[in-house]
């Protein structure tokens, strides 16, 4: 182990990574930074598992007929891809890794409010994961990640029960993290750090936590009801047992639409930090940005019915849900415009994180705008349940959320590990990701418009060309995820030390050493100024 002495930090050995050695010191830690690393490892494993499923799906779809897997396996693959990516990767990704690491650091606190709950949340997450993996090894599950009844409750012969139990348990890990963030942000801000001086990343974590706390219990109850019906035959959803055939969809989307915001809002926070830092400019319209985040969080609860325009919901309910869905697009538009305006007259430096931020803004814009096609009633009738829906939400979830997550990893990696990484490789892989992503998902917009339904194992010949393009893109995309694994791991041993503040960023997390000491700060900081003071009277604060 070599440690360089830097920037007047006297005792580098007490940084959180070297605060203890051995497995036990990690598995029983209550340090939010170490828990963030534990989460990072867990979700990365799940990410590559989910990605592998996606790769098999794309491979199968190269030709119109079934070739490499059976229909049943195909259905299980897309189900497990969705379950793993949504529940085990996207929902925890930014909050549990970056949020865990940064929330205390960014508000000048020593740790989260409830460190033990924080550790518990990681264990709960993994217990949920074990159920899911058990189901996988035991033959998989084929209901789709949406678990629609009565297929999931009565007809599916696959491992519905363990997966549903897994997702049920997993929800509690999100709730524990969210409660922790809410309490911490309310109670543990450094002296002088008032609400409107908080970095937007903190606002985004706060909004996300509120959504998680309000929405997750609903999915827990829904999944529990599903289990009652499947295991005990209590008629809730299946009309053959006296249930209501679309009740499940109402309950499911009441959680799962807000869950979309659980996945995207944290990325918006990350992008705000990056854009401001690398353009050396205060974030444009700070207050509007905070209102927009909270508006998305609130309105997000009122639009679930837009998933059901063709489900036999009444015409008038359709009107209401459609109008509200258009309304919720506005705060997202505000955010995109404000990021763009932030860059205007800035001093933009093209380091790796801002490339991801640019990718995010562009792809999220496309994802958001194509959402209008689905919020609009008459076009949705044709487009829903086709490949356009895949394309739309992958632009939001992968082009948006994952790009934001990777941007954040690249931005705070020096802080988390104390190391820089090879920027040439990093920029190259950002480019690969961008190209691969668009080649994978843009053809799916066209596929949807010409009418290819989603979740199709075999398909008519005329859809083949677009499918081949998409598979080619997915191969490039996959590469774009593997390269960062290599240079980031490599950096831990071989790259130069980052120093306290390699990007010259504002924000309290950059005032303490990298990696930070266990208690984060030598002294609790006192905050007097606004966030994002990158320019003063025309001159850049370097």
């Amino acid at each position: 182990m070599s440690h360089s002495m830097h920037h007047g930090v006297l005792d580098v050995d007490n940084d959180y990574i070297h605060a203890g050695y051995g497995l036990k010191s990690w598995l029983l830690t209550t340090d939010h930074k170490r828990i963030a690393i534990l989460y990072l490892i867990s979700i990365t494993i799940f990410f590559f598992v989910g990605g592998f499923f996606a790769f098999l799906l794309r491979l199968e779809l190269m030709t119109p007929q079934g070739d490499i897997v059976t229909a049943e396996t195909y259905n299980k693959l897309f189900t497990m891809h969705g379950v793993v990516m949504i529940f085990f990767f996207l929902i925890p990704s930014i909050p549990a890794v970056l949020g865990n690491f940064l929330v205390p650091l960014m508000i000048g606190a020593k740790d989260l409010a409830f460190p033990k709950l924080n550790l518990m949340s990681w264990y709960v997450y993994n217990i949920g994961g074990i159920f899911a993996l058990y189901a996988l090894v035991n033959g998989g599950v084929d209901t789709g990640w949406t678990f629609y009844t009565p297929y999931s409750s009565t007809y599916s012969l696959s491992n519905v029960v363990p997966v549903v139990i897994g997702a049920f348990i997993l929800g509690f890990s999100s709730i524990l993290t969210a409660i922790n963030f809410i309490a911490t942000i309310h109670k543990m801000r450094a002296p002088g750090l008032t609400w409107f001086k908080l970095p937007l990343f903190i606002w985004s974590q706060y909004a996300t936590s509120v959504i998680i706390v309000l929405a997750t219990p609903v999915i827990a109850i829904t999944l529990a009801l599903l289990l009652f019906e499947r295991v005990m035959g209590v008629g809730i959803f299946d009309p053959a047992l006296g249930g209501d055939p679309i009740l499940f969809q109402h309950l499911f989307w009441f959680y799962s639409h807000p869950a979309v915001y659980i996945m995207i809002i944290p990325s918006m926070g990350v992008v705000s930090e990056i854009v401001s830092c690398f353009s050396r400019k205060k974030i444009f319209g700070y207050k509007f940005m905070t209102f927009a985040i909270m508006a998305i969080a609130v309105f997000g609860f009122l639009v679930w019915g837009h998933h059901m325009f063709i489900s036999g919901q009444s015409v008038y309910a359709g009107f209401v849900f459609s109008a509200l869905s258009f309304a919720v697009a506005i705060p997202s538009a505000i955010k995109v415009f404000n990021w763009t305006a932030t860059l205007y007259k800035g001093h933009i430096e093209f380091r790796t994180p801002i490339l991801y931020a640019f990718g995010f803004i562009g792809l999220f814009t496309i994802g958001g705008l194509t959402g209008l096609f689905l919020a609009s009633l008459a076009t949705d009738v044709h487009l829903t349940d086709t490949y356009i829906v895949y394309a739309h939400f992958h632009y939001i979830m992968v082009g948006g959320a994952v790009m934001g997550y990777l941007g954040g990893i690249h931005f705070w990696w020096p802080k988390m590990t104390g190391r820089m990484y090879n920027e040439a490789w990093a920029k190259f892989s950002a480019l690969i990701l961008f190209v691969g992503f668009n080649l994978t998902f843009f053809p799916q917009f066209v596929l949807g418009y010409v009418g290819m339904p989603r979740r199709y194992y075999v398909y008519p010949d005329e859809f083949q060309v677009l499918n081949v393009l998409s598979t080619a893109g997915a191969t490039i995309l996959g590469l774009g995820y593997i390269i960062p694994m290599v240079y980031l791991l490599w950096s831990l041993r071989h790259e130069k030390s980052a120093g306290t503040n390699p990007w010259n960023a504002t924000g309290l997390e950059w005032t303490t050493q990298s990696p930070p000491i266990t208690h984060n700060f030598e002294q609790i900081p006192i905050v007097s100024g606004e966030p994002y003071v990158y320019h003063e009277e025309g001159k850049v604060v370097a």
Partner: protein
Amino acid sequence: MWSFPLLPESASTIADKVDALFYFLVAVSLFFSLIIVIGLAFSAVRYRRGSAATRKGALDDHLPLELAWSLIPLAIALFIFGWSAKLYFEMRVPPANAMEVYVVGKQWMWKIQHPEGNREINQLHIPVGTPVKLIMTSQDVIHSFYIPAFRVKADVLPGRYTTQWFEANKPGEYHLFCAEYCGTSHSGMIGKIVAMEPADYERWLTGESQLGVAMSSDGKEVFERYGCRTCHRQDTGPRGPALDGLWGRKVSLANGETIVADQEYIRESILNPGAKTVAGYSAMLMPTYRNQLTHEQVNHLIEYLRSLGSAQNSK
């Protein structure tokens, strides 16, 4: 083999209207994407670090701008909403003169029957120029009846009827897809829609390959066989209400509500008689036929009751 469409076929009266809205949305999307992309590119080049461009007057707040980019998109959004809602209403509410066809979905096939009796599997023959209304239900899980060339789709639910309508305007064969995931062979639950000139359709309907009897006659037979007549006698026997003239009539229920007797009401009266009780009758009396009748038989009964005459005798 390598010819592939980038636009779907358009073969119904609604399709071009949906496409017009679709292309308007494409235009709006292009417009906003370009603003953002050009904005990003402009700043990226002109305001890259170290460039000579002046940064004088850089802002980090501007209320009029914020209002502009909130309110203008909102206005556009509301405009799209209105346009789309109007069209959706048109798509969802069938014209009164629509011809009706019954659809029963099951894992993994579409069973279709015309009131005249013709049965089809995974195929639907229709005339062009006539509105067609589908009365659909599922005998197991949720399916979705999707005809891309007509730009219509509606979920097919167990335990309830859903409907959709369309009017083909171009003879030809079109894809029929199941669009709601329904298990192993979901992608095999496909078929074709055959839109024909009216004269061809008449010929097909009465053609020699069509052995069926009208749904209403099948229904009459079911009515006799399952003993419906013991309670529902012409002379308003002591037990159940008379059923002729029921179709389309307003029925007063025991709970004080009134309801129009349509397919859904009759289906429910047969399969779940306890749910809505006719005023003046005992809720306990009529047995449920839930596990005795097939979905097709229920459809037959409906057509039979309908043939007994309707409230609006014009129809």
